[in-house]
């Protein structure tokens, strides 16, 4: 059976890589967008396969309880986003914002991004993981700049510079981890392989690990979008095509977070090393509160939801920083729910921006009246992202807050404060967007609502009921995370 699994893991990488090459050559956007969907779907199918049947860890790639969560999640969101992208991009072509030539580029880049993310998640080697994440950054940079407007270029430039610095810091951290492992595992390849690193982590030099973690936290933290390294995130979300915003928020941030989690586990396994929790908790809280306040002054709808992603990444980082089975479970759940919800919101926002012809919040009003499906979809999405039940994020917030309050009541206060601040901002905005006298374009939406409502119903279902398999799986991962 392992052979089939090995094929699946290979296909997980090969399908996007091959499609990327293929799509770069084809020109018809109708065809390419369909191929894009099909190949993303095939990738997702491979991920599902891996869920049930895992290959033995190899030198370069491996599958374990932790990364399979991320793989399934990101291939799923990648798949739905590609479906959304098909209808979104069609509109962009019709309005002439993008030309077919750019379309080839766009789809190729989309698949390269999928490839890079899958590689990053499956890599059994800290160097390989680094390379993959760097590749993912580069592809997204290119996609953010695709509209070639002043703002888009600037956003891409900012993303590129800050991302490069971040990735450089991460590389330094990676080298330091190697250095700390090298005396134990010996020179060479072994000292960079996750499976061997984790086995021997207790014997590594703790001080070196400390320094390494600082660099990794800041480096990959830049990718996660944690404040104060967040600056690239809002602009990149706002200026790129909306499917990319969805992928950025729903996937790329998670991949970077995955890297941090891996290294956190490494540190946690070394008793003498500095506890990684407090640093993550601090950065998480800073991001949460900072983003909460930033939400108030946003007048661009996509930028606002980008800040909301920062906020949620803050919460997730906080939860993982708190550690323990409950908080880790909450963190995982929150991450899953956030990916689904945030991408759903971006699906809605993409269509909204298209029908209204603007991204300015002040120019969009009364959506539930002019476009009920989009409007209520957005309302439900925002309620979900604001952590209201019965939607899924409430469950994770419930666990985060209550477990924090039981263990560290003082930490719960800034946490709750941040949540409330962010809630106030989101509520003000959604009231203005969804209600009141309609304003802005009133044209019909030519959109498929399937991805949007699929995500939202998943989020709703998860808020009410989690299948016991999923729970057992997440609990297992939570225990793994320590």
């Amino acid at each position, binding site marked *: 059976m392992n052979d089939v699994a090995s094929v699946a893991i290979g296909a997980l990488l090969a399908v996007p890589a091959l499609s990327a090459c293929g799509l770069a050559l084809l020109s018809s956007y109708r065809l390419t967008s369909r191929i894009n969907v099909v190949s993303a779907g095939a990738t997702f199918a491979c991920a599902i396969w891996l869920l049930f049947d895992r290959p033995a860890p190899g030198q370069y790639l491996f599958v374990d309880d932790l990364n399979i969560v991320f793989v399934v999640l990101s291939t799923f969101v990648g798949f739905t986003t590609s479906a959304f992208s098909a209808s979104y991009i069609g509109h962009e072509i019709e309005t002439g914002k993008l030309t077919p030539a750019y379309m080839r580029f766009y789809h190729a880049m989309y698949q390269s991004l999928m490839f890079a993310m899958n590689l990053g998640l499956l890599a059994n080697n800290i160097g390989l993981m680094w390379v993959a994440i760097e590749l993912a950054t580069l592809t997204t940079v290119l996609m953010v700049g695709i509209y070639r407007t002043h703002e888009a270029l600037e956003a891409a430039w900012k993303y590129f510079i800050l991302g490069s610095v971040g990735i450089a810091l991460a590389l330094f951290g990676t080298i*330091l981890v190697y250095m700390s492992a090298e005396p134990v595992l010996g020179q060479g390849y072994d000292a960079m392989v996750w499976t061997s690193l984790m086995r021997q982590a207790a014997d590594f030099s703790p001080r*070196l690990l400390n320094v390494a973690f600082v660099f990794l936290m800041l480096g990959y933290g830049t990718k996660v979008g944690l404040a104060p390294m967040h600056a690239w995130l809002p602009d990149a979300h706002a200026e790129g095509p909306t499917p990319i915003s969805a992928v950025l928020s729903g996937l790329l941030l998670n991949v970077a977070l995955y890297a941090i989690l891996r290294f956190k586990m490494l540190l946690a396994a070394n008793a003498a090393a500095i506890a990684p929790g407090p640093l993550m908790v601090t950065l998480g809280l800073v991001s949460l509160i900072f983003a909460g306040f930033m939400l108030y002054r946003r007048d661009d709808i996509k930028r606002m939801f980008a800040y909301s992603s920062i906020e949620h990444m803050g919460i997730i980082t906080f939860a993982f920083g708190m550690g323990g089975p409950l908080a880790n479970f909450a963190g995982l759940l929150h991450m899953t729910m956030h990916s689904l919800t945030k991408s759903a919101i971006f699906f809605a926002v993409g269509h909204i921006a298209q029908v209204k012809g603007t991204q300015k919040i002040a120019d969009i009003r009364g959506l539930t009246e002019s476009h009920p499906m989009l409007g209520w979809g957005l309302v439900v999405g925002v309620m979900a992202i604001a952590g209201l039940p019965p939607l899924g994020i409430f469950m994770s917030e419930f666990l985060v807050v209550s477990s924090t309050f039981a263990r560290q009541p003082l930490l719960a206060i800034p946490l709750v404060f941040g949540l409330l601040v962010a809630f106030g901002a989101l509520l003000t905005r959604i009231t203005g967007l969804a209600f009141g006298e309609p304003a802005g374009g009133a044209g019909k939406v030519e959109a498929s609502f399937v991805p949007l409502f699929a995500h939202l119903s998943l989020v709703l279902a998860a808020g009410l009921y989690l299948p016991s398999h999923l729970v057992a799986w997440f609990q297992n991962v939570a225990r793994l995370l320590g």
Partner: protein
Amino acid sequence: MGNLSFDIAHLFAGGLVLVSFMLLYQDRMSGLINIFTLHAVVLSLSVGWQAYTQRAWHLFVTAAIALIFKALIIPLSLRRIMVRLRIHRTVEIIGGVGVTMLVGIGLVALSMVVMLRATAAADPLAREDLAFALSVVLLGLLMMVTRRNAVSQVIGFMSLENGLILAAAGAKGMPLVVEISVAFSVLIAFIVIGVFLFRIRERFDTVDVHQLDQFRGEYR
């Protein structure tokens, strides 16, 4: 062998830090490019020496890449960009040279403390190497922070990368994949930057990032 090889490695790595300081000090565009060339040369010497002492022949490739790519091609293209964009003026250093240098010295001290404490168990060569590498990284970052001009920021970034390569070279037995990936990333980084400069050139008269910053997508 021991002492001499150590001294030479020390010399090169220390030299790299020194050159980083020179970069920090330099406020003229052409001077900056020249010094960056020097930086790359010292790096390649350092990496080469590491390759020799570690008997890690693949490191020579890295050294060669550093030498050819960073010491030759990049300075040349930067000069071309300078000419084409008519950037000859001096670069403003935020906070003045004196303060920047002081901060730089502080950073070097910090990296010494951090690294020497952290690597107490490792062999002295690696320790020195890492400490210097960290200094170079921090100084490169400092340079990016204190310069307003895009080209000098790029140079700052590249000196930072040099620090990384120094560290990677110092890490004994680090698999080849890392060097290649570093070179690869530098390559891509440069290409993309080039594309960007080109695009920006296409639309604006300057690559002065400061003017790009005027617009944040939102108005105050």
